[in-house]
């Protein structure tokens, strides 16, 4: 019965035009599924068994990436209902929660997902540090990672202002005051970020543009380089590399 259904679905030209290989239960089809599928070809066809030990990576990098993806999708959905103006921002959020189907859930998932991402990126950094995953030839990927950590914090911070309530207003006021404490250029840096001396319409617009355009683009590019480097560095680190010479 189930065989018949599977045959019905897969033995036709449309299916075959999408998947140009059979069910991945042979060595050949298992490699084809990876390198002929756009979304999978980021993986190597074969991985070291050590990579798969759950207690080595704890899946933390994958989780960080998945959270980023969820945030991108829920974030785009939220953009349909939000205008970054001091007149509208707050009431838009109220309307989102009460009048938009699943609006509250959308906002909740975006918010808690952002907090979780901050947490999981840090845990991932701890994992890499404690297993020595930053060592040759992965130095640059570690540096890219540190930058990704900073971008994650900035993404979260710029989003925090957008609901335009007391919580966001004062959190951003305090947060940007911290940045304003930089020696010499502090005051200028703060004004550049806020577009004015105080948090107001200019700041809301700047934070919005940073949050929905600039920072996501920059983070995406760095995540792609991060993944590219993992492949070029021979996959995930493992004890098998211990005797390799370091140039």
């Amino acid at each position, binding site marked *: 019965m189930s065989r018949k259904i599977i045959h019905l679905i897969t033995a036709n030209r449309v299916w075959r035009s999408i998947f140009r290989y059979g069910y991945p239960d042979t060595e050949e089809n298992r490699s084809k599924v990876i390198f002929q599928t756009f979304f999978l070809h980021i993986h190597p066809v074969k991985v*070291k068994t050590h990579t798969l030990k759950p207690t080595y990576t704890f899946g933390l990098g994958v989780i960080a990436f998945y959270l980023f993806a969820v945030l991108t999708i829920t974030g785009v959905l939220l953009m349909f209902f939000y205008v970054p103006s001091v007149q509208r921002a707050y009431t838009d959020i109220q309307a989102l929660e009460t009048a938009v189907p699943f609006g509250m859930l959308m906002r909740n998932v975006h918010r808690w997902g952002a907090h979780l991402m901050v947490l999981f990126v840090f845990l991932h950094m701890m994992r890499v540090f404690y297993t020595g995953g930053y060592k040759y030839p992965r130095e640059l990927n570690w540096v890219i990672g540190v930058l990704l950590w900073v971008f994650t914090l900035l993404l979260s911070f710029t989003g925090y202002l957008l609901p335009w309530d007391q*919580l966001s*207003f004062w959190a951003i006021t305090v947060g940007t005051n911290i940045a304003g404490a930089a020696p010499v250029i502090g005051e200028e840096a703060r004004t550049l970020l806020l577009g004015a001396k105080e948090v107001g319409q200019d700041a809301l617009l700047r934070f919005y543009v940073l949050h929905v355009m600039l920072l996501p683009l920059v983070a995406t590019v760095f995540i792609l380089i991060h993944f590219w480097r993992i492949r070029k560095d021979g996959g995930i680190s493992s004890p098998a590399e211990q005797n390799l010479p370091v140039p």
Partner: protein
Amino acid sequence: MELVKGTSPMVDKGPEDTVTAWPHLLLMEILAVLGVTLLLLAMGIFINAPLRELANPDVTENPAKAPWYFLNLQEMLLHMHPSLAGVIVPGAIIVLLMMVPYLDRNKADIGIWFASPKGRRLALIALIYTPPILLGLIFFNEYVVVRSIISQPELIPSWLIPLGVIGFFTGALLFIFRSFKPTFREVLVGLFTAFVVTYFITTIVSTVFRGYGMHLTWPWELPPGALTF
């Protein structure tokens, strides 16, 4: 197997050390994704994101807190000069973290959690050493207050004492490490642990143990606007 030229992690490794990414790796990834999806949906259904009154520049929040992940910086702000707490210390941490792989070039312990049993011990020492000192300093500056002992010249309470305290306790930790005759990597593991513990404790204290005027309180006595999640 193709021929591999030069040094690659796969040299001298038989094919038996590898498995196909499908289904082995993909299955693990799907499990992680499903787990996070369930967690996020549960959180999204049961806990609502906060939305307080409309922003009002004329009504100052008390306490006025940054988002929780910057409260470690705001905690430091209570104890030292703003430039030091808000810019110099975090900047130095980022630069030091980036330098780590260029300083620690020995691959002898790659892929081993905490480098070695000795590394694990140094991490444990840092884990036990840091909290009492940190909490002691926080309590001291809350109930005794450095500035009530010496407030002039300004340089002393805002720069010299904090830098001196950081330097002294880091130095003391390194001194304890020395008796174990550790490798450079093992020292790094211990120091990184002290950083992580400091990072978490300052974040937690400032998030759930600081209320009106950023003074210490119990989590159940926090004023309504004090949780910046």
